[in-house]
């Protein structure tokens, strides 16, 4: 699942190395368009609907935090 998350991120911003970053937000690797695209991709891929109140910086700061958010939404490996 982490590989898939990385794939989505790389698809949105191919110019960045997301695996090497510990905080996408602080490093300015994503903007508001990117978050909208990423949430749409995750929702579609896993058949979930991430709640607007969960779209917070701490849930999108790195691959691990996105992974935890998906687990919380009932996604399994």
């Amino acid at each position, binding site marked *: 699942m982490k590989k898939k998350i990385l794939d989505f991120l790389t698809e949105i911003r191919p110019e960045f190395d997301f695996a090497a970053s510990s905080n996408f937000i602080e490093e300015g690797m994503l903007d508001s368009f990117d978050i909208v695209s990423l949430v749409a991709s995750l929702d579609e891929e896993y058949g979930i609907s991430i709640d607007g*109140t969960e779209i917070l910086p701490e849930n999108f700061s790195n691959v691990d935090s996105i992974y935890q958010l998906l687990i919380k939404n009932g996604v399994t490996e």
Partner: protein
Amino acid sequence: MLKINLIEYFENTADSFPDKLALVDSTSQLSFHALKQKAKRIATQITKESHTIKRPVAIYLPKTNDAIASFLGTMYSGNCYTPLDTKNPVPRIEAILKALNPSCIVTNDRFIANIEKCNLDIKVINLDQLDEGQKIDENFNYRKCIDTDPAYILHTSGSTGVPKGVVISHLSIIDYINWVVDTFDITEKEKIGNQTPFIFDMSTLDIYLMIFKGATLYIIPEQKFMFPATLLDYINENEINFIFWVPSVLVNIANLKLLGPIKIPTIKKVLFGGEVMPPKHLGYWINNLDKNVVYGNMYGPTEITGTCVCHIVDDTFNENESLPIGKPCRNTDILVLNEKDELCKVGEKGELCVRGSSLALGYWNNLEKTNAVFVQNPLNKSIPERIYRTGDIAFLNEKGEYIYIGRKDFQIKLSGYRIDLGEIEHYILSVFDTINAGVFFDKAKSEIVLIYESGNEISVKEFRSKLAQVLSKHMIPTRYIKMDILPKSTTGKIDRALLNKKINNA
């Protein structure tokens, strides 16, 4: 007496509310008195460095209180300001600076290195090195300016690769802001939550309501717009009551259904513009906010200062009908002209043209482009009278409201950003000089698409990383299609109409 320039308005406000909060950004806040002192210190430095009047001063700063103090400082010095986007790649900044030839650039420690990379002989004022103890010279040159002198220059995407500098006079802003103040009953009690970048004409309204009426301007940190729940928390924490945002932000909040879990009871006025507002999403806002909230659909290109046609949402609002752009603002006249340059009848589509004090003075250093769109009113055969041809197609309905249809050229709107597809193409062909390519817009997906002809496949990664060095992020295509041979018309040019149909399944 009638005020003739923007500094007179600012001085009046600063005298009325010296201790009131003028500006709040993520790291600081300034009272009107403190803002005035800061602006005057910057003005003194500009005059010392450049000795110019009525010349452009480039402001290369992020969206902060310092940027607004620099705008005011420039006007105190009798010059006109030009905000530059610190997120733009350096070559684009360099192209703008070359065409603009400003008398100096105001920047800070963080961004000065980018200016040095440009290799231009322009004086630089570094705000972080400004001498706080320096004596302010009160002989400001703004007193020599009249209302038809330029106040600012904003750059919009140009088809030939170099952005066009739209020059706006003091008079145009005075005309516009006085209409906004009366129409939306603006006082010093307004707490404005700013979303749009200062390189956008939409921010003119936010900034000048603060300057004219003593409203407080909150420069909302950009990260809040990435995470809309935190944006709504910000509104509540600061008791924001007035917003003028691009529809994309309002749509995102509606799609995430955030106004149920997070109430924003302080909001009283919701204005939007820069692109088409979908009525279903507006319906969501109307159903979830207080009944007395005022909604305004604001239409107008940069070339007419801000808004020339406005629709205030009323009881007739219907989620299943597209929102009119509305009726002309006071002291503005709209002409919808057909191909014979005659006034269209009710229901007949034509090009929307504007006349009034709001018209820009023209494009900076570009008489040819200026004369192409700021033209003699074809309906007036007796005296010289300029109109601006917007390139937008619209019609007048039976209720006397204008309805927007679309563009007559290759210009698109993406989250309020006005983009000429020709500018994207220009940069792509200059970076990838072995391919032939056309840039298109997929309306359904709101996506910029590049179709290219090349012997070998170029990876998306290669395209995007190279284009990021010359194009702003919102201009970079997100879909890439390789064709062995592009369809051509009989003259040998790319058959754009055919490819456009393919992309849009029309």
